[in-house]
Structure formats: C-alpha cells, structure tokens
C-alpha cells in the first residue's frame, strides 16, 4: 500500500509535469504567433499611416502652390507695366491698383522704388490695399515705415529674384496672417529699379492645414522659413512663438533634429515623444516659400486598433490557456480515477485467478488417473465460462469400485463456485463410507437442503461401477441423462429425473442399475456442452454431440474431439455456460466379446477351396491385413489338407469341423475330425537346410503350420482329433 501511494504520487507528479509542459508549449506557440502577427500588422499600419500622411502633405502642398502660383503670376504679369511705369512715376500707383484689382488673391500691392534710382524721387512706394469697403491707395514712403529697410524689399533686391516674405500679422487690417511676394523690377538697362509686391492673406492656409485629417487625434502644423509658427492647433502660439521656443518645452531632444530638418526644407518622418506619448511627425517643405508643413500623429492613433486587438487576443489566449489547465487537471484526475478502478479490477481478477486455481485443484486433473489399471479408461474436463464456475466432476476407486459424479450448480460465477466446492467436498466425504449412489445422493441432499439459504441447487449424477463385474448402480438428481455406448450404438442411459440436490430435505431418491459389458462406455456432461451457442444463437445440440462421439477414440481423445467441435461451432461467440464432461470407458478382459465362426466340410480335396472364403470372413472379424490373412489361410489349409488326406481310411466319407474364434489379441482355429487318432504335431521337423536332392517331398504342411502359428496343440478327446492353432494379433 505504501509503495502504491509512492507510485501514485510519482504518477501525479509526472502527469502534472507533462501537463505543465503542454501548457507552456501552447502558451509559447500562441505568443510567438501573435507576436509575429502583431509586428506584421504594426509594420503595415505604419506604412499605411506614412502613405496617408505623405499623400495629405502632397495634396495640401499642391493647393498651397496653386495660390502661391497665382500670386507670383499676378506680380510677374504686371512686371512689364511696372517697368514701364518707372518712366512715368505718377502711374506707379495705377500699377499697384491694377495688381490688386485684377487678382482676387492679392489683397495689397506695393511698387517700391529703389532709393536713389530717380533723382527727384528719393523714396517712392505707392500701395494699393483692398480694405473690405473698397480699394485704398496710400504711400508707404514715410520715414516711420522706412520701407527700404524692410525684408520684403531688401531680399529681392539682394537676390535679384522673387522672394516670399516671412508671414506676418497684418497690423493695419483685422490682424490677418499675411505674406508678401516681392519681385525686383529691372529697367531697360537691366538694373534693378523697383520691387513689385503682392500681399496675400493666409487665412485659407490655416483652414486648409487644419482641415488635414489623417486621424482624428492627429494635427498639422506649418512653420515659416524662420521657424515662426504659422499654423498650429494651439492658436496662442500662432505668429507669436518660434518653433525653437515651443520645442524647448518638449522633453525629447529629437525635436531639435526635427526642427533643423524642417527648416532645411527636408521631408521625412520622425518619432517624437511629448506629453508622455510617442508621436510620429511627417513633414515636407513647401517650395519657394520656405515653409515646412508637418502632420503629427500620436502613436496610439496609428496602433490604437492594433493594441485593442492585441489586448483582446491576449485575453483570449489567457482564457484558452486557463481552460487548457482546467481540462488537463480534470484529465489527470480522471486518469488517476481510472487507474484506481483498473487496480481494483486487477485485484479482483487476480483473486479470481487464484480462485480458479483452487477450484481446479478440487477436481482430479491428472489423466490417465489410474495408469496401472487396464479395465477403466476415464477422462474428464471442466471449462468454467467465467474464471470460476459451478460445474464439478469427481471420481475415485475404493474397494475395486469406481465412484464418479458430475454436477451443475444453478447460477454462475463466485456464488456457484462456492456451492460447487461444498458439493464436491460432500461427495468426497460421503462416498468415503457410503457404498450406494442412492445413499450418497440422499445424504448429500440432506446436508445441502439444510444449509440452503440462498435457494441454490445442484443437478447431480452419481454412479458406482463394480470394476470386476461391470455392474453399474447410479442415482440421478435432476441432471441430464448421460450417454451410454453399448452394442455399437449411442443412447441415453435410462434415468429417473428425481430432483436436484438442495431443494427438498428428506427427498426419496431412486437408484437404478445396469450391467456394463467390455468396451461399453458412459459420457457424462453438463448442459453447457449441448447448449453452447454460436453467434446466431443456435445450440450445439445433442445430434452434433452424438455425431462427434460416434468415432472410436480413447476417453481423452473423445473429450478433446467434443471440445474442438464445440469451439469450432461457437467460434467467436462468448462461452455462456460452464462446460464439463466425463468419459468413462469400461474394458473388462474377462467379459470381452468373442467372435466365432464355424465351418464343416467333407473330406474331399475340392472342399478345401471353401477355406479361402472362411478365412476371409474371420480376417474381417479380426480386422487383420491381407498378408496375415493369407498366412492364416495357408496354415489352416495345411491342417485341413492333412485331415482330408489321412484321417479317414479307405475313402470313407467324414466331416472336418473348423472353428474360428476372434478374441482381443488372438485368433484361434480349431480343426477336429472323427477319424483315426493322429497327432500331426508329433511329425519330425523338416530340415530345411538340406539340399534339393536330400529333401523329401512331404512334411512341409505341418512345418508351415508350426511356422505360421504361434501355438499349435493336439488333443484326442471324445473320439475326436482336435488340433488347436493360435495366432496372436
């Protein structure tokens, strides 16, 4: 028990370890799969986001460029007239007016003369301005304004090409965000004489940039060449803060690199951490203006869906693994339970096996049981349907009397086997001192009926065979009638049914008797033989049984033949009942049958021809081969010829009587006649070693008789010559 507990514990440990390993492997596999999936999805999302951001930047830039181009065209288209107006300074104002009037995007326009270009006009800068209520004209050539110092004037003059100013807030108008395009105007000699400008409002820019919607949480920004914030969701910063100042609040220093890239007019993307979150910044320059546009997408926005999905997947995995653990636990528990059941079953089976061994040891099992005896050939078998059964047989010899029995306990299995044990013990005990089957059966019935609380009964057949005489006494207690083999036929032994043992105390059992001859036999069996069922529920039956038993075999061979026939018949159908058989072959040399034949012939030589047929018949009785038959024929012919030739004198007619007796182991011929006394055995031996010349013609007949037969005796009795010749077979 202790060992078993240790073993069980080890088993639990092993199972648990295997289960744990399974869970770990499953978890790792699931995790690896979802990781791969996660990274691919993440990569895809990033690409998608980049693509969308870039296309938005591109589209916005396109729209900006459209307006920028319009403004540039407006100025460029008026450049020739501005150049022309240099000759007519009064008309310069009209040029500015024309620029504003003819171009919807242009809010204001100035034509600023390079100081010193004209002798009489040191400074000249007419300015046309669309102020909601109409076009206003005034001059910017005031000492306070000092236009030659302004960036919009100096830069194009320095560069000699068109220039977009830094955005600025319109101080004169409604605080609009503005920018100015300035183009240097050259005179005929190619010298820069003036600068023509167009002011455009950037109001549309704010809404355009703000309308960029890549993701709900994303926002866009635009900065100027100098880093001035032009568009930003935080309106307080617009035009009031430089991007460098705004960036100083951001803890991630990567932003400085971003600022540098943007100011350098590069395009690309960069992750920046601020407000505790990672944001992806996509940026691109707007050519010519020096502006840089950016879209800021919080990472949570890009991967938000993915994170939610991953969370869900992880939750599902945890749930699945938890279920796996539960299932494994219950499997391990169940397997332990199963093992316990199995152990119990094994223990019971083991006990049953031992029980079977005990039961089998209660019936005689060594065959032949009486090897020294030649008068009885007995064999028996018992095949319980289950490990143990309720059938029994027994036999023993006491005082030259064979006591034998067969029985079948009602029911099967262990209860039946216990009753079987009791029955067999009772038989042994009772038959040790009782002589008659009736007394044995009656006595057993008393004991069994007394203690029969479970209403179990036993069909029983008991016999006693007096081995010297073949006298059989038997008593049947409700068992099926045994088969009797006698006179070359098989029939049921006549039995009075009576009642099985254990039913009625005080039951009067009837005894019967019969004389067995030499070579008679009895076959006792239980109904398990005849009621053996095949898969189609057909019974083996009495007819098949008798057919199998109709051959001449030893007791043991008979039982084997029946067993084989039953197995062959039932095939794979399970054995439904115990199968028990007992075969008893009675062989009494003193009572054996003798087959006799008799022939009388006259003392004529022709009559001798009759001998051949006679010997053939005898040979048939004795079942001997043709060579031996021929030898017997020769011996008999020589003996009879002797009588025919010499017994009766003077041609007197006389009979020759021939008797043949076939007994087990020998054939005996007797030749007798009533002629004169003559002993052929007294004739001298023929010397067969002599040469042909020395050999006599006669004397060969009796020589052959002596040679061919095992024993030859002559006697004269009742005035008869009697020659007896015996041949052992």
């Amino acid at each position, binding site marked *: 028990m202790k060992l078993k507990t240790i073993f069980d514990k080890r088993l639990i440990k092993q199972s648990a370890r295997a289960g744990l390993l399974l869970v770990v492997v499953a978890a790792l596999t699931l995790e690896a799969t979802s990781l791969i999936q996660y990274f691919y999805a993440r990569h895809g999302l990033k690409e998608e986001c980049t693509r969308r951001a870039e296309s938005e930047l591109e589209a916005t830039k396109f729209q900006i460029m459209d307006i920028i181009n319009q403004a540039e065209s407006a100025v460029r288209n008026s450049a020739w007239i501005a150049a022309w107006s240099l000759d007519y300074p009064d008309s310069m104002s009209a040029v500015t007016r024309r620029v504003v009037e003819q171009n919807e995007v242009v809010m204001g326009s100035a034509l600023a003369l390079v100081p010193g270009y004209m002798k009489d006009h040191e400074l000249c800068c007419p300015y046309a301005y669309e102020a909601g209520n109409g076009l206003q004209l005034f001059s910017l050539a005031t000492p306070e304004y000092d236009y030659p110092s302004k960036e919009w004037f100096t830069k194009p003059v320095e560069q000699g090409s068109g220039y977009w100013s830094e955005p600025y807030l319109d101080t004169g108008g409604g605080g609009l965000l503005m920018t100015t395009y300035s183009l240097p105007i050259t005179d005929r000699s190619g010298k820069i004489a003036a600068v023509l400008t167009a002011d455009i409002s950037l109001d549309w820019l704010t809404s355009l940039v703000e309308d960029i919607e890549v993701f709900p949480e994303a926002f866009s920004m635009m900065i100027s060449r100098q880093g001035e914030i032009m568009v930003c969701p935080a309106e307080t910063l617009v035009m009031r803060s430089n991007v460098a100042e705004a960036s100083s609040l951001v803890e991630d220093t990567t932003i400085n690199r971003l600022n540098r890239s943007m100011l350098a007019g590069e395009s690309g993307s960069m992750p920046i951490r601020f407000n505790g979150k990672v944001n992806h910044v996509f940026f691109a320059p707007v050519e010519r203006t020096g502006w840089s546009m950016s879209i800021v997408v919080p990472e949570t926005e890009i991967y938000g869906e993915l994170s939610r999905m991953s969370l869900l997947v992880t939750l599902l995995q945890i749930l699945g693994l938890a279920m796996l653990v539960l299932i494994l636990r219950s499997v391990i528990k169940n397997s332990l339970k199963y093992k316990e059941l199995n152990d119990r079953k094994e223990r019971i089976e083991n006990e049953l096996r031992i029980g079977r061994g005990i039961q089998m040891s209660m019936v005689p099992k060594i065959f032949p049981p009486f090897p020294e005896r030649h008068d009885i050939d007995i064999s028996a078998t018992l095949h319980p349907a289950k490990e143990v059964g309720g059938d029994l047989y027994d036999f023993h010899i006491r005082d030259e009397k064979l006591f034998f029995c067969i029985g079948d306990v009602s029911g099967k299995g262990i209860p039946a086997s216990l009753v079987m044990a009791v029955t067999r013990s009772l038989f042994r005990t009772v038959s040790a001192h009782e002589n008659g089957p009736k007394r044995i059966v009656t006595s057993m019935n008393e004991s069994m009926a007394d203690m029969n609380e479970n209403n179990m009964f036993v069909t029983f057949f008991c016999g006693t065979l007096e081995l010297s005489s073949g006298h059989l006494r038997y008593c049947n207690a409700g068992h099926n009638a045994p088969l009797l083999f006698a006179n070359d036929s098989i029939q049921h032994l006549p039995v009075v049914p009576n009642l099985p043992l254990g039913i009625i105390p005080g039951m009067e059992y009837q005894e019967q008797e019969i004389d067995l001859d030499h070579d008679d036999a009895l076959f006792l069996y239980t109904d398990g033989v005849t009621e053996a069922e095949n898969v189609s529920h057909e019974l083996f039956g009495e007819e098949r049984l008798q057919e199998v038993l109709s051959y001449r075999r030893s007791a043991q061979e008979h039982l084997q033949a029946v067993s084989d026939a039953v197995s062959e018949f039932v095939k794979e159908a399970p054995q439904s009942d115990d199968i028990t058989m007992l075969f008893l072959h009675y062989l009494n040399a003193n009572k054996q049958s003798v087959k006799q034949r008799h022939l009388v012939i006259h003392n004529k*030589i*022709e009559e*001798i*021809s009759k*001998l*051949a047929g006679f010997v053939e018949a005898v040979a048939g009785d004795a079942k001997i081969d043709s*060579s031996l038959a*021929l*030898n017997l*024929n*020769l011996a008999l*012919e*020589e003996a009879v*010829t002797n009588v*025919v030739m010499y017994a009766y004198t003077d041609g007197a007619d006389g009979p020759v009587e021939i008797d043949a007796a076939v007994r087990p182991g020998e054939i005996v011929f007797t030749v007798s006649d009533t002629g004169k006394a003559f002993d052929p055995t007294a004739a001298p031996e*023929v010397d*067969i*070693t*002599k*040469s*042909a*010349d020395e*050999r006599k*013609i*006669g004397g*060969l*007949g009796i*020589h*052959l008789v002596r*040679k*061919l037969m095992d024993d030859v005796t002559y006697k004269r009795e009742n005035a008869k010559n009697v020659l007896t010749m015996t041949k052992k077979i």
Partner: protein
Amino acid sequence: MEVRINTEKDLTTVFLSGRLDTPSSQEVAAKLESLQDKASGTIVLDCSELKYISSSGLRIFLSLRKAAAAQGGKVIVKDINDDIRNVFMMTGFLNLFEIR
C-alpha cells in the same frame, strides 16, 4: 488357377496365375507331368501372377527341381510376391531355387 506352358528349344516357361492351393495343385501337377521327362534344359516358373501357394504347390516345384537336377537342367523361379517369398523362406526353398 491358370497354367500356360511355352517351350522354345531348351527354354520352357511355365506361367502360373492365381491360387496354387491343394485342389488346384492336382491339375497343375497333371499339366506339368510331361516336363518331368525333359528337364534337361531350363525351366522358368513365372510367378508374377501367382497369389498363393500351399505345400502341395511347393511339392510340384520341388519335384520339378529334383527332375531337372537329375537331367542336368535347371529351374528358375521368377517374380514371386512378398507373401510367397516369405513361404519360400520358411521352407528353405529360397536356397533350393534360383530366384529372379
């Protein structure tokens, strides 16, 4: 019982068929009577179809053998079956005849 005698110069073949028992020996002895006087050549007893022989049959064989011996001839016994060979052995006839 059937007996056929075929003589070619010095060679006489006697074909015996069936059972040579006491009754049939009498006829066979009569049929072979003539051979007794001209036994100077070779007499072949063809026993291939002979099934049985009793002492009366053996006597015929022996008297032929004696006659031949007296006249300088010889007797050959041919093709005896196992049963007859056994009888020949029991009677010492195996040594008296040339058996083929």
